[in-house]
């Protein structure tokens, strides 16, 4: 029998285990449609705020000599209200709406905008490492995390995912806090705060100076986080960070992830990467006697 690559992240059921990560090609329903057609099991939207944000001036992203990317797009996004209208017609694509905000009310307001939309889940961005007052600055404040997750859980019945990163508060504590407040799943990891300096001009390359590191360089760190979370807590995990091949994805499953997200790999390998990873996973499963993704999850912890 052919192995099945469908998976579930808590109560979120996905036909395919590889999703689009937030902030990647994430602002247009038409593009979502194309990505879904090309193998994405779900798409996570760009992190949305109450109002449209322009983001930082360019340079907002560039590639590192040894691979990987640093970005500080500054969470530019069209805002939740516009976005909700845009995706209202959607019926077929599993869309996970990523949200950023500074206070519980921001999240409440945004979720209300999506009342008429078919949403698979919300992902709370508690981890963007380069924008003041949101993202990591929220994730680093356990009290605020508590309030936000609690309010969000009271606002909607749709599953809520918390996306964590490496901030000043240890991410495992943030995960713990989110779980206490009823979070449905965890996405690990966001980009890692980083910098590159151009020696000819003697200045940081990004207009924001600091940015977030993504792509292959962060994979071993993200993988360790997934392994640590799944060793410490009983919560569904979505692995994210530097995944660009089926082998990377399998490593995350074996470490304890129920599904994965990919971002930078799209810049490196373009949209075919979804189908490549999906079919690679399937082949691996056949060859290694796995018939479901579930059987793979966390196997490396048993060794």
């Amino acid at each position, binding site marked *: 029998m052919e192995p099945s690559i469908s998976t579930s992240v808590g109560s979120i059921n996905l036909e395919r285990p590889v999703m689009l990560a937030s902030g990647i090609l994430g602002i247009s329903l038409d593009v979502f449609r*194309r990505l879904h057609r090309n193998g994405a099991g779900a798409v996570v939207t760009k992190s949305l705020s109450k109002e*449209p944000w322009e983001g930082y*001036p360019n340079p907002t992203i560039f590639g590192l*000599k040894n691979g990987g*990317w640093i970005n500080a*797009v500054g969470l530019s996004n069209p805002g939740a209200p516009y976005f909700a209208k845009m995706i209202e017609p959607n019926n077929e694509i599993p869309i996970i709406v990523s949200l950023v905000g500074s206070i519980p009310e921001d999240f409440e307001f945004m979720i209300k905008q999506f009342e008429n939309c078919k949403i698979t889940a919300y992902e709370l961005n508690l981890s963007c490492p380069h924008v003041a007052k949101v993202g990591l600055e929220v994730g680093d404040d356990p009290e605020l995390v508590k309030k936000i997750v609690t309010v969000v859980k009271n606002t909607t019945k749709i599953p809520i995912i918390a996306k964590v990163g490496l901030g000043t508060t240890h991410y495992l504590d943030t995960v713990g806090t989110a779980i206490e407040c009823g979070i449905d799943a965890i996405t690990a990891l966001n980009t890692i705060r980083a910098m590159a300096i*151009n020696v000819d*001009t003697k*200045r940081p390359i990004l207009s924001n100076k600091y940015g977030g590191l993504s792509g292959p360089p962060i994979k071993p760190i993200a993988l360790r986080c997934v392994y640590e979370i799944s060793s410490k807590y009983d919560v569904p995990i979505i692995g994210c960070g530097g995944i660009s091949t089926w082998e990377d994805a399998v490593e995350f499953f074996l470490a304890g992830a129920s599904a994965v997200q990919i971002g930078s790999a799209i810049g490196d390998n373009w949209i075919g990467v979804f189908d490549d990873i999906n079919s690679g996973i399937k082949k691996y499963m056949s060859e290694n006697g796995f018939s479901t993704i579930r059987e793979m999850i966390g196997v490396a912890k048993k060794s």
Partner: protein
Amino acid sequence: MQRNPNHTTICIVEKVIDETPTVRTLVFSDDVMSKVLPGQFAMVWIPGVNELPMSVMISNELGKAAFTVRKHGPASTALFNLKAGQQIGVRGPYGNSFDLKQGKILLVGGGTGLVPMMRLLTFMNPQDDVTVLIGAKTKDEVFFEDLANKLLTKNIHQVIVTTDDGSYGEKGYVTDMVKKLVDVNHYDGVYTCGPEIMMFKTVQYAHSKGLFVQASLERMMKCGVGICGSCCVGEDLVCRDGTVFDGDHLLSNPEFGHFHRNKAGIPEIY
């Protein structure tokens, strides 16, 4: 080690050429950029200011390339104001390129949209019969007419300039001239780059005559590599799927000729 195209390389502006009062060409040495294909662009860093997508302009010197910039907002104005000896950063080249046809060729360019057209001219075959249409608002804004003629000395060719106010060349919109030409001639390939409305009409006219037509689009760009999504047009990402698209593909795209997105990603009407 081969250069990673996504990592910024610093180049020195070696020469600044005034094309019009608001358009300048900045020449620099860079082997990679000197060899790009017509339609390809670079992300150009003006240190301390911004980074802009720019079509890569040809240079008549080996190993050199250029950017031809129109001063507009703060970013392009800063680029425009650079002097010889100052630094710019480049990454790329990015994007695809025009499909070259042979025979009777029509090029339609407006403003800095002429940049990829000039590079395209360097790829013409000696047997091609080439018509270049250059559209401008007024006489002052006409540039690259001489260059186009020079690049085509070996070809049967004509370079036609139109100005909206008739202060130079033919009076009227360049797209009126396109209509006139495609009504009476068959072209084996029509190529256009410039303001979107100009491209939209050019594509419509050419397509309605069954001609092979391609346009090179411009959109808000942050990454240039298909990550950020800011350059999307319908299902397409201009930076990665384009900048060059076939006319029939474009006409089936609901956003082409109608919307572009602002920095927040919200569609705005042209």
